[in-house]
């Protein structure tokens, strides 16, 4: 149900069979891209997709991924700032 992994499209193979080649950390596999992309925004080489049992389920939105990491980083930064403040406020 849940094991799906991000992969990058490296080659479009067959439009009729909806096949593309994806790469995950150096490993390549043919996958079906029939569930992602449409005429307005077809899947292209370089796109990142979420792969589950040999099918791409969703396109990975790189901007959203970045935003998520930034939000996490903000939490991180706030945390780091607090620790820094704590250290500075110690009476020497």
């Amino acid at each position: 149900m849940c094991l799906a992994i991000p992969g990058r499209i490296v080659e479009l193979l067959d439009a009729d069979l909806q096949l593309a080649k994806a790469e995950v950390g150096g490993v390549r596999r043919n996958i079906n891209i029939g569930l992602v992309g449409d005429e307005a925004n077809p899947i292209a080489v370089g796109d990142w997709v979420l792969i589950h049992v040999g099918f791409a389920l969703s396109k990975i939105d790189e901007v959203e991924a970045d935003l998520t990491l930034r939000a996490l980083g903000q939490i991180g930064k706030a945390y780091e700032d607090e620790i820094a403040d704590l250290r500075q406020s110690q009476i020497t």
Partner: protein
Amino acid sequence: MKFVTEFRDADLARAVAANIAEIAAPGRHYKIMEVCGGHTHTIYRHGIKDLLPENVELVHGPGCPVCVLPMGRVDDGIAIAQRSDVIFTCFGDMLRVPGSKGTLLEIKALGADVRMVYSPLDALRLARENPDRDVVFYAIGFETTAPSTALTLQRAKREGLHNFYVFCNHVTIVPPVRALLDSPDLRLDAFIGPGHVSTVIGCRPYEFMSADYGKPVVVAGFEPLDLMQAILMLMRQLAEGRCTVECQYNRVVPWEGNQAALRSISEVFELRPYFEWRGLGFIAQSALRLSHAYADFDAEIRFDVEGVRVADPKACQCGEVLKGVLKPWECKVFGTTCTPEHPLGALMVSSEGACAAYHNFGRKTFAVTGAMR
């Protein structure tokens, strides 16, 4: 690895953990359920519980599509696999699940042609390559996997294959969650929503949980930082008195779901009037079967599947663990009669099952946890 490694960063983890600890009101005990078995696996594999404060407890839900299959259905699959004219294909997850008289791996030892596949398309290829044998694909999984089975069947139809069949055991996520919310012995504060099911069905289907039952929901990804962030988002809702559905997994989950996937499901499948769930009993409209248009590919019709009901072994408490009422180690047979090697129930076999996850990853005394820090 991109989109993976960044979400496993330990420094960010500590920061999020500190925030969670800060928000958690002392003296209050929080119970958060992760619905999806894949989340259970992540929690144990990365040791996420170690980063949470003592008063934030994670309860494991019924989102393991292997664990919730009643023994009778497992027996039905094994009966099909034992036929000499059949090449029986399935995912690795199913090979060791115990039926009442054995597992698929055991009948393979006795000569059944049981083959593990990574994708239903691999099973389709076997059907093309072996026109004189019947190839059966054991379809399991929630809405995450159903579209893949659907597209495979659409292709089988287009190619006019006459020897490909699907034994359909796809289940849907909303009915069992509703059954849990309705059950009187459950006291939960919030839910971590299933990230990959949501790539197909979107986030709207969970709105009833906050609107009707007053429980906040955050749909989460599967890397450890995704879960930590989702837990933080839930804690913030609880602290601020908000109650709504949010999505942490924005990089992948479309709020409205995947229309192509939903269309494929509605073309190829229909809802069964009811289906039996291990531990939860019969639930209406909670599982899929092949629609009339695809009857020629239905293994249950072709092989006249008996559909016998088999009760769980008396000692088995899978149902209560599935509902989150018991923790794995509270089950009377956990680790003694029921181990990953000799599982009594599916929760000990499936890598998503709470018992297997805990047995394989989580058994350690508190003294030890202290020593590791």
